[in-house]
């Protein structure tokens, strides 16, 4: 079968075999929010913000391949509330100070918070004690803002293919860390790539801050998802 037929919220859609629901939705002009997902990287399915309903079951749209005849629920009140709750939980379990974060305006978590109109905290702030690591030559790791999406773990590698980033410890103690030896030799380009890839302000390139003026930042004029959504 060369073309798959399926629906998202009743909209007739087509996809190629092997595509995930997120990819196929995008191709059909339907926005499914993502945070850990990044085009070109192997899906991780860790943030669950892309949760959709297929056959009455909650599925991560970034890891689920689309199938012929599939009926996908996406923009329902229930799912939108789940997504908003995930965004809210990510905010309260970190220390996110948007007013002074240089990723503000380019931050996907902040953009999602605007999309879901996060006005007041529904959950108590946890104010975790997290460390900032500024000891590397090219980057600062600001763990207060990390949402553990694993994008850096999956994408940033040394020339020999070895991973520079990784997760240490487990559960609530899990945190992003680096292979210090490999990180020492990161190039400017790789540092910039890591910063651009990070959906929040957790990886910052050293010595450059607030270089993009307000008004020119990614989400200053276009809300997240607006480049995908078509009627």
């Amino acid at each position, binding site marked *: 079968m060369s073309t798959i037929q399926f629906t998202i919220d009743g909209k007739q859609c087509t996809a190629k075999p092997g595509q995930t629901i997120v990819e196929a939705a995008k191709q059909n002009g339907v926005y499914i929010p993502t945070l850990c997902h990044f085009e070109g990287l192997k899906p991780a399915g860790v943030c669950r913000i892309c949760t959709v309903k297929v056959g009455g079951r909650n599925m991560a749209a970034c890891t689920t391949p689309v199938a012929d005849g599939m009926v996908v629920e996406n923009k329902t009140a229930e799912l939108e509330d789940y997504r908003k709750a995930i965004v809210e939980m990510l905010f309260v379990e970190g220390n996110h100070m948007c007013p002074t974060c240089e990723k503000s305006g380019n931050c996907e978590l902040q953009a999602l918070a605007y999309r879901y109109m996060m006005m007041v905290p529904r959950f108590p702030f946890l104010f975790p004690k997290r460390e900032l690591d500024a*000891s590397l030559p090219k980057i600062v790791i600001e763990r207060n803002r990390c949402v553990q999406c694993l994008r850096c773990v999956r994408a940033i590698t040394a020339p020999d293919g070895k991973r520079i980033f990784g997760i240490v410890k487990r559960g609530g103690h899990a945190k992003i860390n680096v292979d210090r030896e490999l990180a020492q030799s990161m190039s400017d380009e790789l540092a910039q790539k890591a910063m651009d890839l990070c959906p929040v302000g957790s990886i*910052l390139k050293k010595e450059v*801050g607030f270089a*993009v003026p307000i008004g020119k930042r990614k989400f200053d004029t276009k809300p997240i998802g607006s480049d995908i959504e078509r009627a």
Partner: protein
Amino acid sequence: MGRKITIEPVTRVEGHGKVTIQLDPQNNVTESRFHIVEFRGFERFVLGRPYWEMPVLVQRLCGICPVSHHLAAAKAMDVIVGVGPEGLTPTGEKMRRLMHYGQMFQSHALHFFHLVSPDLLFGVDADPAIRNVIGVAIKHPDLAVQGVMMRKFGQEIIRATAGKKIHGTGAVPGGINKNLSIAERDEFLKGADPLNIKKMIEWSVAAVNFFKDYHKKNKDFIDSFAAFPSNHLSLVRKDGALDLYHGVLRAVDADGKKILNDVDYQDYLNYIGEEVRSWSYMKFPYLKSLGKKDGWYRVGPLARLNTAEFIPTKLAQKEFEEFKAYTKGKPNSMSMHMHWARLIELLHSAEVMEELLNDPDLQKNDLVVKGTKVKEGVGLIEAPRGTLFHHYRINDNDQIEMANLIVSTTNNNEPMNRAVNWVAVNQLSGKKEITEGMMNAVEVAIRAYDPCLSCATHALGKMPLSISLVDAEGNLIDKKEK
């Protein structure tokens, strides 16, 4: 039996403060104190943050003049990145100057029209229900509209240079992150009335004339109220001109003799000390050469016009000459003349904005300069309320390891205390009851200095007012609140 009068908090100023006045059994004033009772601790919680965040982070000290903190921190970071305050590209420096003079313009307009004009238009002891900005809007709508529109113009200048009207991100270490487009420029040069620079200059001239006219009719009040001699300190351009963005540090005494002779502010610690007194969170800065007792000084518009030799714009220079002639060239020590000086600076700011808007350097693209990093930097700027000091040191990992901020209001701490004491001695001494007018007189003295108390302790708050009469044993005798 002695008594203590407490005024808490003080209104129509930025922040939260209180005044206590101690009376002896004959109701004569024995002591008065202007306390700052807030604490925020910015100098502590910036520690550990990357240095390039400072201009954006520390401006959160204040929502009234964040630009001053933004630029003072950026100037300190210029030093740290090895560029130095004079090493910026013409576009970098001029965009920052435009931002700063826009800030000065809107802040001075706010202070005069919104905070002070009610006292002048209705009288110090007028009914407080009328004596406020709404009262001005009802009785003098033209003046109120001018105040609002002048603020708006200044705020729009800030938006065009910093990205946002409040808490922008324009200044970065070593430069600026945007230039001014032709379209943005033309909005200010050719905007529909009243939002264009010509109208702003016209209204600024009118504001100076308004004050001079008021002065003529109320000479005794303006010349004598809270007048006392002091030293004066500010930045001046190297040739002695008034410069609100950059220069050398100069101080003069009450006779006009230079007591700090155009020194490089990177060495401010050699010249300025800070005294801590147990009853206030706000420190008391002083000139080390004169010591704690005599080394205190005024900062702000009055001090700036006392230290500067001339103003480098035409209309403001004309007003400056008249201002100087009034005291026969000697430093002016009349607290209420702070308003006159402020309005001359308002006019000067409008003229500087016009010059800058017509400068093609603002459309160029050479925005940031890089140099060789050093560990420590000081940034000084003349904020609307006076000289603002930012001093930072970084560690090997580019993190802030020391921050010292001396804000304008802190520099004016002793003068404000003296002003309060003047009112206490001259208007409250010997009186058994406190009237609302007396309460406001204390505030009028403080308000002349346009204090930003939230900045001063790096705190945030607002200022309603209450006064208590307490006897020597601490028993409450009388209390009035508003």
